[in-house]
């Protein structure tokens, strides 16, 4: 692989390592993310996918290694200076993370109010309307998050994430917990944002249907390292067993054996009718 340097992509990590309580979650991860493309990070639950993208927006700080955004090192920046960097990024949290004490309208205006001095009511209305229109929820301005369904919450959260017209959007498990139709709505939205606004997307998911559909590139993480890296076709035909098992959703022989050992017959087997008089 070619040597990665800080200008190889819009976001670059070099030897990113994160240790939690003496256990390495990420180990010397080096990756360059291309501008304008959608990169999907896949991997089993608990392999450090979410930890990885939280590093890219500096919500978590690495134990060792460097992270660059547009050639500027961000992992050692002070919280105060990160504000400007983060304005160019949007983050869609797994549960949406909408402020539940505020309406949809206020939620979307939060980043706008924090970073601009727009105070004209009509202009603010227009911003909210256009952002909600992108996610197809115009008219929901006065709703509280508690009154929205899971899919709607994620779409409002997406509208909030793109409120400042960011260049990069991170998606943390965008389709988890949604039914197949709602998942596809989110997939279409991610594609639409890329096509119409040229947004660079980085998504973390274990939903392979979604991964194949939205990705330009798929990276598989396993035990804190990159196990596979390529486009959807390459991943589908990857020779490695672990990768194949993951994308096909199969349990490995060892796991099956472990389940078989314990069995389903218990020494104290009983039926409800055993307790009847």
């Amino acid at each position: 692989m070619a040597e990665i340097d800080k200008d190889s992509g819009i976001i670059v990590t070099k030897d990113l390592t994160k240790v939690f309580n003496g256990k390495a979650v990420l180990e010397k991860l080096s990756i360059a993310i291309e501008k304008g493309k959608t990169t999907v990070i896949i991997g089993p639950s608990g392999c450090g996918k979410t930890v990885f993208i939280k590093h890219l927006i500096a919500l978590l700080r690495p134990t060792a290694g460097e992270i660059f955004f547009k050639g500027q090192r961000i992992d050692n920046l002070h919280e105060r200076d990160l504000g400007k960097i983060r304005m160019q990024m949007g983050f869609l949290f797994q549960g949406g993370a909408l402020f539940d004490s505020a309406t949809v309208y206020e939620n979307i205006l939060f980043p706008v109010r924090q970073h601009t001095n727009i105070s004209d009511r009509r202009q603010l209305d227009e911003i909210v309307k256009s952002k909600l229109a992108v996610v197809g929820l115009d008219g929901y301005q006065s709703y509280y998050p508690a009154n929205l369904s899971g899919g709607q919450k994620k779409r409002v959260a997406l509208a909030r994430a793109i409120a400042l017209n960011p260049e990069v959007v991170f998606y943390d498990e965008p389709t988890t917990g949604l039914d197949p139709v709602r998942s596809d709505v989110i997939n279409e939205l991610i594609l639409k944002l890329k096509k119409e606004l040229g947004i660079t997307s980085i998504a973390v998911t274990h939903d392979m249907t979604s991964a194949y559909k939205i990705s330009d590139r798929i990276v598989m993480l396993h035990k804190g390292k990159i196990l596979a890296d390529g486009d959807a076709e390459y991943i589908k035909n990857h020779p490695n067993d672990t990768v194949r098992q993951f994308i096909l959703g199969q349990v490995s022989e060892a796991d099956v054996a472990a389940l078989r050992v314990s069995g389903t017959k218990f020494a104290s087997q009983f039926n409800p009718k055993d307790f009847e008089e």
Partner: protein
Amino acid sequence: MVCLQLSNRQSGYISPVIDLAKYALIGTLVVDVKEKGWVMIVEQIGASTIATVTETGQFARFIWRSAKSSVSSVFRGKTWPLVFTQMLIIGVKSVPVIMVTGAFVGMTLAFQAYDQLAGMGLGEHIGILINLSVVSELGPVLSAVMLSGRVGGALTAELGTMHVTEQIDAISSMGTDPVRYLVAPRILACLLLTPVLIVYADLMGSFGGYAISVWFFKINSQAYWQFTAYGVTLWDVMVGLTKGFFFGAAIAAISCYKGFNCKQGAQGVGQACTEAFVVSFIAILALDFAAAIISKSLYSIFYPIRSLI
């Protein structure tokens, strides 16, 4: 004199309490040794020492960050609306409960103290005892305890839930410092309004004491107020109110810290609230003790000692 008598009487009770505490400590140690052996205990002591030091350091850094952003918020017009919202929630809505606290304190003091004083023929001096206690100790401390329950609990639960549902991360991800947006307004509101709330507690405490002494025990109203005016000085009132700033800041800082660092899940939020209350309570008492020492020594520099009877 009353205080002196009290302390003499109390010293007799203290030694059995200490003995009891010793036995309890030894008891738990013995059980621990039987279960885990000495090595485990040494390990545990080490681990908890490290955890305590780490936590103290984290807390100190959090306080430093919050203090910096609170000061800078004062000069940023943008954060004032947030401070006013918090003032409404923290301050205005606490007034009734603080007034009730104050009134009961005054009334109870009057009731407890009257017969002893009257027996010594000092019944009319009761105003000094009630108002001095209320203004310099009981008003501020009990208001602060009330606030740490009412306000501190709510702050920790709110911020803890926001932390658990990633809303605090969301604020950071949108380029806003969550300490500046969430903590600074709460600390400022608490800091500025606790002394004001103490004024309400003092007012109702004096009124409660007056009501019981004059209306119920039929003490001469003029004598009551004359002795009070002689015994309670502006200094006492100001010391009481000054404590309010420290209590308010401590309650808000501790509660916000516990909320920001709460563990995942419903149990995590509950635990954070409990810890926030307990730590604030102890902080209030410790600060009060420190304030007593400092105010007494300052007073003795400027004024000669006053005999109250």
